[in-house]
């Protein structure tokens, strides 16, 4: 069970990472998109390359109680402010939006606020299904 006292808390802010043309091109190429005209601009789902590794690192906090081997990604939402571009220095802040318990399992929603050097670039909400230890 997750620690309900964490709802509303801001859990971590990642160190700034510079986005390169190569990192955008690699993300796009993995999805089969090799259009040379858009390799400086990331697609909206690129935000998860910051927020999902940050979410998995929450498992390192024993007080929170998150066992990432019991996690299934259930929903994802993006609200971009502007596209991420090569040269942006991005960092993410993760906030515990809600924890709902359903039949011994937890539904955890995290809000990842991603910012560049000049302000916010977008928000990524990640909802995880965390299977209860009894199941």
């Amino acid at each position, binding site marked *: 069970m997750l620690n309900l006292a964490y709802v509303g808390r801001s859990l971590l802010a990642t160190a700034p990472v510079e986005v390169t043309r190569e990192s955008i091109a690699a993300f796009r190429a993995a*999805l089969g998109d090799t259009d040379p005209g858009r390799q400086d601009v990331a697609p909206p789902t690129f935000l998860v*390359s910051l927020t999902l590794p940050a979410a998995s690192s929450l498992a390192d906090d024993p007080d929170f109680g998150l066992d990432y081997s019991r996690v299934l990604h259930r929903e994802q939402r*993006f609200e971009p402010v502007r596209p991420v571009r090569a040269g942006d220095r991005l960092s993410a802040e993760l906030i515990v939006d809600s924890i709902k318990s359903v039949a011994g399992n937890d539904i955890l929603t995290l809000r990842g606020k991603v910012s560049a050097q000049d302000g916010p670039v977008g928000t990524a909400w990640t909802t995880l299904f965390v299977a209860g230890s009894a199941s």
Partner: protein
Amino acid sequence: MNPGDTLFDAEYRVRRADLAAYAKASGDTNPIHLDDAAAKAAGLPGVIAHGMYTMGLAARALEDWAGDADRIRDFTARFAKTVPVPPGDEGAAVSVAGTVRKVRDDGSIEVNLTVTCGEDKVLAPARAVVRPS
């Protein structure tokens, strides 16, 4: 443009090599997307695509149609079913169709996305808002 009108209909093929490339590029290295033994240990029949891989294909179809990533606003999906990816060049086929849900007063288009693998709706519901160009 009216509710129900088809905006685009695209088909993509997903191979295990694509999942390995996506794991590296996205930092999502959960082994259930890379290794049959790990997938089976998690109760799956075999390797499945990252939910975010499939959502990435939906984003690609949206961006191809909209012509500009900057037009995509409020993009949301629920991962309803898995996309099993068998080994080999065949991989799995995923199709992404976009239809008009509603046209807002400011000209933004609410798009319903139908994302399927075989008979399964794998993202459901899936929606986006595309602002005017």
